[in-house]
């Protein structure tokens, strides 16, 4: 279970491959973007502001949540706290790929992270687990997602009211199905069922008893801890035995 690859590299060919591999999936993102554009206008943002938010923030869930706070006045502290809470999962996602990205020069490393979001991160992690060293999936996939998120927002801003009930067409389940496919498509390792079970239970408990949006972080940390507790230093014991 140690690192599967000795290094990391980032080149144009890898990035283009990443864009291409994400392209079919990122078409779904257009629909999310469209929904965001529509919602933003209905909350009183201008088209320009909606586009700015999609371009600069590029984190769907937190953008939708921010709309809830938008009014004649924008309360800054709640806005910052909500944005942080919803996006704090990025901290854990970054931590998970740090051993891999550590092989990149710092400028490339921190530039790559600008476009890190759930889907391209998940695909890049799956790549890494298969022994891939090229970080192009993270960057190229991120660029594809960014472009389609922006295109979707633009469509929403321009032709807002077209799609009234996206859930009728099953469009609201795209994200969940995508992430589940990533989870199952990654490394097949039954020992992961214990931490994943712990993560699910902790996330549900956090939803019931802890502040909104804390469940992702609580679940992820619980899963990590379960991974530690279930196999305490197995390698050492095997070495002794």
């Amino acid at each position, binding site marked *: 279970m140690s690192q599967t690859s000795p290094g990391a590299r980032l080149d144009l060919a890898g990035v283009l491959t990443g864009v291409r591999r994400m392209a079919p999936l990122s078409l779904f993102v257009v629909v999310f973007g469209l929904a965001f554009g529509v919602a933003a206008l209905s909350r009183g*943002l201008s088209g320009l502001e909606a586009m700015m938010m999609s371009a600069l923030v590029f984190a769907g869930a937190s953008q939708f949540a921010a709309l809830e706070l938008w009014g004649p006045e924008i309360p800054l502290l709640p806005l910052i706290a909500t944005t942080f809470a919803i996006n704090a999962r990025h901290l854990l996602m*970054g931590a998970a790929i740090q051993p891999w990205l550590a092989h990149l020069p710092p400028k490339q490393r921190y530039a790559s992270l600008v476009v890190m979001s759930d889907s391209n991160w998940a695909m890049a992690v799956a790549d890494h687990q298969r022994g891939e060293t090229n970080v192009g999936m993270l960057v190229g996939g991120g660029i594809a997602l960014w472009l389609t998120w922006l295109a979707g927002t633009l469509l929403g801003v321009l032709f807002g009211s077209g799609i009234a009930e996206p*859930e009728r067409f099953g469009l609201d389940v795209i994200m969940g199905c995508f992430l589940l496919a990533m989870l199952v*498509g990654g490394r097949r390792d039954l020992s992961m069922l214990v931490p994943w079970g712990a993560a699910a239970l902790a996330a549900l408990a956090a939803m019931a008893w802890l502040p909104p949006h804390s469940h992702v972080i609580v679940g992820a940390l619980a899963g990590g801890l379960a991974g530690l507790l279930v196999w305490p230093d197995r390698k050492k014991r095997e070495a002794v035995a």
Partner: protein
Amino acid sequence: MSLPSTLAGSAVAILLMALVTYLTRAGGVFVMSRLPIGPRVERFINAMAGSVLVAVITPMAIQGDWGARLALLATLTVMLASHKTLAAISAGIATAALWRLVA
């Protein structure tokens, strides 16, 4: 503290959101690069990587309607059987749409 939602006020609020979001994207890497990564930290991280996704998906299954639940089930089944991501996601979407058409 609040800003008026003029263009300038909104721009400042959006820039703050962007800054906070980038800090979350870079922060995990920044902190971990300053921690020694032993086998325990590595095992924690390995278990955590999938757990993030589990923690995002679980509420969708619990709070969602049967359309959402069956969609996840369809995706899981197709993914386990065929390992084809696009097919798995399409199956999920189709299942949710069909369920809601019928139910």
